[in-house]
């Protein structure tokens, strides 16, 4: 609340002091898409926040969205930015939401400071996940991009960038907090998640052709709901304190570490990222990677991707002696691999068209990011089309 009040005061002061020198700009972006998954035992979805998707039928909800970005340039150094999107949410309703919005200070001398609601810098494309036109694939590999279920926070970000000889580097530091609702569709529950003391660091360096990226995030996270309280309260009441301490998601120190390598040189595109989530609770530890190779034939860019995620310790054979806890632990299995082949067709400065085929192989009982009641996993064949636009 203090951060919000401070931000409002700063914005008010800046607006009143520079009312005669501001510039206002509105831009839009979006994706129209359809997805077909051939396995009726699974609901294929973009991320864990979606409730509905394709299940042996065409889904227009998976990737379709429209976004709006406004920029108010207050003066040479200060600007206000806001981005909102409209898409299908976790209650299977089309809703509008503010994705991010902040006051930005650009020194013009290597330093940028943002205060407000900011994208969390987990992955290379964290900032532009919803802007399909700026990405090669219709959606990023969930094996890496699906590990952490929140994408924005309230706080501050400081960016310093510079060039040494022929190499550039960007250092990014973040601090803040966040509150959100995370659905656990497979057991029809929702958890209220509080993230405190979020610290993040991100270093990117290289050339315009070859870049490397390192990310580290640390936060204290609590997940609660009536059924979780009942479950862990019941364990403690039964004297199972050790079991409760081990799996209860209460003020747990949580970490994410990621590395990436990216090549964009003379028509060859290559990108790879590895991510690792560590949370000592029922929200199990996981690691995963992807590698994408593409080649730009002027307007056509065909690509192939291989991705894999693995639980650090398999959750599907959980046998704690408490049935409700076992069910919760089994639902955390996100192990899978996928192979994707696709093509992006660049139409013009405003539109592109994409097609991709994805073969998904869930690993382990009750597994996969995609919703299912099956115990034994089955493979999925997923076909996706998308039209991206920016104006």
């Amino acid at each position, binding site marked *: 609340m203090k951060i919000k009040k401070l931000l409002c005061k700063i914005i008010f002061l800046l607006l009143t002091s520079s009312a005669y020198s501001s510039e206002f700009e509105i831009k839009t972006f979006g994706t129209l898409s359809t997805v077909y998954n051939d396995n009726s035992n699974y609901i294929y979805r973009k991320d864990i926040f979606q409730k509905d998707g394709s299940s042996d039928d065409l889904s227009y909800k998976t990737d379709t969205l429209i976004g709006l*970005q406004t920029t108010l*340039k207050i003066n040479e150094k200060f600007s206000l*930015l806001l*981005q909102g999107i409209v898409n299908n949410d976790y209650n299977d309703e089309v809703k509008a939401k503010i994705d991010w919005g902040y006051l930005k200070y650009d020194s013009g001398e290597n330093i940028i400071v943002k205060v407000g609601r900011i994208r969390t810098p987990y992955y290379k494309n964290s900032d532009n996940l919803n802007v399909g036109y700026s990405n090669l694939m219709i959606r990023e590999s969930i094996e890496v991009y699906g590990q952490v279920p929140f994408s924005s926070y309230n706080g501050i970000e400081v960016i310093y960038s510079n*060039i040494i000889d*022929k190499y*550039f580097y960007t250092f990014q530091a973040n601090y803040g907090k966040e509150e959100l609702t995370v659905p656990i569709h497979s057991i029809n529950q929702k958890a209220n998640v509080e993230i405190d003391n979020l610290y993040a660091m991100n270093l990117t360096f290289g050339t*315009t052709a070859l870049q490397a990226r390192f990310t580290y995030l640390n936060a204290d996270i609590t997940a609660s709901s009536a059924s979780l309280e009942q479950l862990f309260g019941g364990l403690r009441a039964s004297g199972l304190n050790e079991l409760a301490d081990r799996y209860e998601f209460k003020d747990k120190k949580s970490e994410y570490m990621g590395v990436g390598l990216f090549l964009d040189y003379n028509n060859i595109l290559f990108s790879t990222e590895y991510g690792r989530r560590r949370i000592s609770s029922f929200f199990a530890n996981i690691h995963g990677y992807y590698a994408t190779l593409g080649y*730009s034939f002027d307007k056509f860019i065909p690509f192939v991707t291989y991705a894999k995620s693995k639980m650090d310790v398999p959750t599907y054979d959980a046998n704690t002696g408490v049935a409700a806890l076992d069910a919760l632990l089994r639902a955390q299995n996100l192990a899978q691999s996928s192979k994707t082949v696709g093509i992006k067709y*660049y139409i013009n400065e405003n539109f592109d068209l994409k097609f991709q085929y994805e073969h998904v192989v869930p690993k382990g009982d009750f597994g996969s990011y995609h919703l299912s009641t099956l115990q034994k996993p089955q493979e999925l064949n997923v076909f996706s089309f998308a039209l991206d636009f920016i104006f």
Partner: protein
Amino acid sequence: MKIIFLLLLGVYFLDAQIVVVTNKNSQLNSIPKEIVQYIYLAKTDKVENIKVKPIVSDDKNLHGGFCNTILCKSESQYNSYWARLVFTGRKPIAKRFGWNEIVKKLQELNTIAYIEKKDLREEWKIIYEEN
């Protein structure tokens, strides 16, 4: 007929050598290719502590040639890259200028632009040329 057309096309591209220029009175003399790339990909706006203003042409052939030969990217990669900058709030969209506007802009010191070498004027100097 087809061969003649291809030969003419080849001659056109051989002739269309793209260079980066600035005002003759600018303190800028020579810029390495990597720094030209950084400037046009918005990673820096300074060369040896001199603030530069890069100009983007609205001539599609010229711009496509610049992207390919000097930025080492296809035009589609360049546009995806800029969409990323614009829609993550990092940079405003780069305005594109016609020839007359470029001539006018190059009257300002430390403004840089890419042109076809055959269009070079006396009041400008080349600060980067592909070998």
